[in-house]
């Protein structure tokens, strides 16, 4: 069964801006799905419509088989949303924010208390349960929103840039949490600008640009399309010019640094032996850019500038 099914979804705002131009999307139950796109591409509009925060112009959305128009209550019961920006009452305590949300989903009080405790403990927020939410750090506020979204045990969880602006330690712990939630059977749709995050976590991916889905496939086959990897080599000694080695594009980017484009069919072994032959000693190397980032830029840039 599909966790989410979108058919020919269109949205034109009152000012005439066409944010979605008839998108179709299927997300399988249990998936960890990435929805990516540049700013203004239509991601937030799509998520807004799925979560009933924005009215669609036309098209349909169904969540676990429940149509959002005709079977609204059941469709909404399956969904949890972690929005991009903090949107809880900053004067409420952490516990009341989560507990009230359980109430809005019709969860009986006793069960709501149990789930609130469970979610706050899972988010490592139990010690902060009686703290007024405005006193929390940015990372904690994000975790409150995740706990709030999970308190009614949704089958589909949408996380809209959940790690934006949080430090690397919290981000890693949130990755772990998202993976745990997904492994427990919850379908996750993730939007993020950190493409390494999508690459690490997600099995399937859709890229949206200018209101249209420009790519929709599994992560592995998308990454397999990348024919060239870019590496930065740190050298032991300075080089005056970039060496010329057949099959590789090499560029000098500093006294002791080279940028090398490595075709996948040739690989790295030949590169190192040739560099040794040129008396160039490599100390370390790193990927110049994230692989998904490279593909993302290729897909987005493939549109003519005047269309963008």
């Amino acid at each position, binding site marked *: 069964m599909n966790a989410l099914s979108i058919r020919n979804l269109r949205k034109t705002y009152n000012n005439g801006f066409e944010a979605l131009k008839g998108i179709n999307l299927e997300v399988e139950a249990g998936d960890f799905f990435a929805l990516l796109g540049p700013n203004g591409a239509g991601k937030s509009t799509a998520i807004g419509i799925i979560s009933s925060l924005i009215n669609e112009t036309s098209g349909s959305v169904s969540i676990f088989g429940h149509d959002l128009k005709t079977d609204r209550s059941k469709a*909404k019961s399956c969904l949890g949303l972690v929005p991009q920006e903090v949107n809880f009452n900053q004067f409420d305590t952490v516990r009341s924010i989560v507990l009230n949300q359980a109430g809005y989903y019709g969860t009986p009080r006793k069960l709501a208390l149990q789930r609130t405790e469970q979610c706050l403990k899972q988010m490592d927020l139990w010690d902060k349960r009686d703290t007024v939410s405005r006193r929390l750090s940015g990372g904690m506020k994000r975790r409150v929103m995740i706990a709030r979204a999970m308190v009614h045990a949704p089958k589909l969880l949408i996380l809209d840039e959940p790690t934006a602006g949080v430090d690397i330690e919290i981000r890693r712990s949130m990755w772990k949490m998202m993976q745990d939630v997904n492994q427990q059977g919850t379908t996750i749709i993730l939007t993020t600008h950190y493409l390494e995050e999508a690459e690490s976590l997600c099995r399937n991916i859709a890229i949206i640009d200018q209101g249209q889905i420009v790519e929709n496939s599994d992560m592995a086959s998308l990454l397999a399309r990348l024919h060239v990897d870019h590496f930065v080599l740190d050298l032991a000694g300075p080089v005056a010019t970039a060496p010329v080695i057949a099959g590789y594009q090499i560029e000098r980017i500093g006294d002791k640094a080279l940028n090398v484009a490595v075709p996948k069919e040739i690989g790295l072994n030949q590169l190192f032996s040739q560099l040794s032959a040129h008396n160039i000693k490599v100390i370390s190397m790193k990927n110049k850019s994230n692989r998904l980032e490279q593909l993302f830029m290729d897909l987005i840039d493939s549109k003519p500038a005047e269309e963008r």
Partner: protein
Amino acid sequence: MNYFIAFRTLVTKETFRFIRIWPQTLLPPAITTALYFLIFGKLIGDRIGTISGATYMDYIVPGIILMSVISHSYANVVSSFYSTKFQRNIEELLVAPVPNWVILFGYVSGGIIRGLLVGIVVALIALFFADIAVNNALITVTIAILTATLFSLAGFINAVLAESFDDISIIPNFVLTPLSYLGGVFYSVSMLPGVWQTISMGNPILYMINAFRYGLIGVTDIDIQLAFIITGGFIVTLTLFSLFLLHKGIGIKN
């Protein structure tokens, strides 16, 4: 989906919200109305004499109580719902499977509860100044609840349509307060010249205050049945309009 749980959650949240800040919500009307009773009822009222057989103090008590109910039921919903919109925590309700009527009646119930609590506080203060024996408890309680309902609905609509904090203060300052004062709180409409009497009859607050006054002290300028019909008619109209706004998502979606 158990809608009653969602409704109860919303009402509880709304009630605790204004109780938590009681120095801002419950204390000021007690002080303000005590001053009304002291200045208008005691100091000036002794020189006015009686209206329709009631002392001036007894005559103004029902109007002042209901004026407090009106302003506080309105203020509760307009400020609470607009803040919810402004901070975007309305999204908590829109994402959840909460029907529009539960959202509406949840907020309106919060307004009713605050309006009636303030009414009780003001009535208790009034007991220090006037000796009031309730003429008809059913009419008194019913019209108080209906009035609180009507102005909670009005506050809700104001909050939905408001785009700034200025928008939520314009109606209370420039419409609600003048209409309340001109609704016969401090005088009988029969004391006005003919044309002003006719104009006053177009003020719905006049009917509610007179019905409440009849319930408390048995004095009225208007037909009580008409007061109930007008109040009920407004409630039905505003309820339907509020549900229409929520259904269309006007002011809260997109």
